[in-house]
């Protein structure tokens, strides 16, 4: 597995987690989510966010509402549901766990 492939796989795996993380602070519409994720260089292609958001919504982790915008058409804002918040805490703790054990591995070499 090449270095590039590893990075892609890693980002893809973490994307769902990152979307929930970004939404935990404020409600955002899709483009804002993408911009935030781009800042942290987590996105491979922007299009992947759309099916992911739809799936998160179907699972009841996020919900959406239409809000009028000053320029252009109304925007669909996403926010975390109660279930989503709970799911995020679970994800966060397992991420921290994995992260610390990998950190240990790296430090012990």
């Amino acid at each position, binding site marked *: 597995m090449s270095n590039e492939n590893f990075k892609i796989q890693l980002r893809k795996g973490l994307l769902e987690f990152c979307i929930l993380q970004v939404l935990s602070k404020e409600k955002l519409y899709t483009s804002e989510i993408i911009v935030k994720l781009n800042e942290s260089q987590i996105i491979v292609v922007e299009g992947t966010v*759309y099916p992911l958001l*739809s799936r998160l919504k179907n699972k009841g982790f996020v919900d959406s509402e239409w809000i009028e915008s000053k320029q252009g058409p109304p925007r669909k804002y996403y926010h975390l549901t109660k279930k989503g918040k709970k799911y995020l805490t679970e994800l966060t703790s397992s991420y921290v766990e994995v992260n610390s054990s990998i950190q240990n591995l790296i430090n012990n070499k």
Partner: protein
Amino acid sequence: MKKTVTANISGTIYNIEDDAFDLMQKYLNSIKMYFSSYEDSEEIFMDFENRISENLYSISNNANEVINSKHVAKIIEIMGKPEDFEDLEIENNNIKDLSKLRRNNNDRIIAGVASGISDYFKIDPFITRLLFVLTIPVGGFGFFFYLICWISMPKTSIVSSTKRKKFYRDHENKIIAGIAQGIATYFSINAFIIRLFFIALIFVNGLGFGLYLLIWISSKYAKTIKQKMDMSGINLNVDNVEKFVNESKNKIVESENVSKVGSKLYRIFIFPFKLIGQAFEILFPIIKRIPKVLIIFLIIYITAILGIFLIALIIIQFSLFEPNNELLALLQTIIVDLPALTLIMIYINFIISVLLLSIFLIKLLSEKNVKNSTIIVLSIGLFMVTSFNIINLGSNDKLENDIDKIEDFIEDKYFLNYSYKLKIN
């Protein structure tokens, strides 16, 4: 020199070179098709187009530059092709699931049982659906088996493979419900032959009519471009979409020309059929909105009625029948003397036991952890009730008498004969 066109993408006006416009359209079509199986596909697509517009705005110097194919290629690179999202889907849905027996929630009419089974055996769900419907008159088997599978198969929402041909009814070339046209497309033959076939079958005890209705209930219209392409088994990619859309446009123009030329007689002949189609079109959504619980209730109810009716029929037949030998005569008295209520209870218990056993077996097949002890407890309980009923039957004086008679009879005729022969020897 290049021709440019003006396009409005999510409220922003762009000047786009002709070839870049074609490329963009192809790309948008492939995206639209990809999301067509999603619940809120329209909204997702709108969102997606919005984002494309934003990106295009920033890379074209605030929409001041003319968009060329390099810009579009850049957009596709940023947003990604459907294939790129597909990877992610598969990872999340766990492709291994396809080898397990699951209800398919993405492609369902009632609960996705038929399409789940089709995924498992890699066949067209239409065939499975038809089998279910066709076996309903066979002692309610189709009903029953569906119910069992519904309870015991866990659900999933796998995006099923797009390569297999699928049967859909054809909305554009329909006369009643587009069934003949759908079948014709599926087998790549002329719809006229299929129509003739159906009409011919009507004269065979109305078989054509019944078959048409069955297929009608168990199939649906091809709505999205993806479904329309699945009808003839075309693969999903950017080039094929464009080709397909162009071809179907031509077809529509063609058929319009034909109908202009077509005689009034033909239209008069077809009119009553079209009317039937319209009527059912109105009824169908109502049928589909009936809640699941009611459907389950109906299934149980109808099967129970069918079974009781069957028992009654057997009893009546037996009591009307003139026995021509002694053993049969005795059997007849026993059947007539059986209390009907107990018989029905035994029947229902038997059915439920079979049901529970099947649930257990199918759960094993779907490799779900079979820790469900309620099923086992319930089956044991039911078997106990059934045995109690049978013992109760035995304590019925009339019946005991009958059974004694049969025992005596058998002893006399076979056993004693045998020992008698032994004695002689």
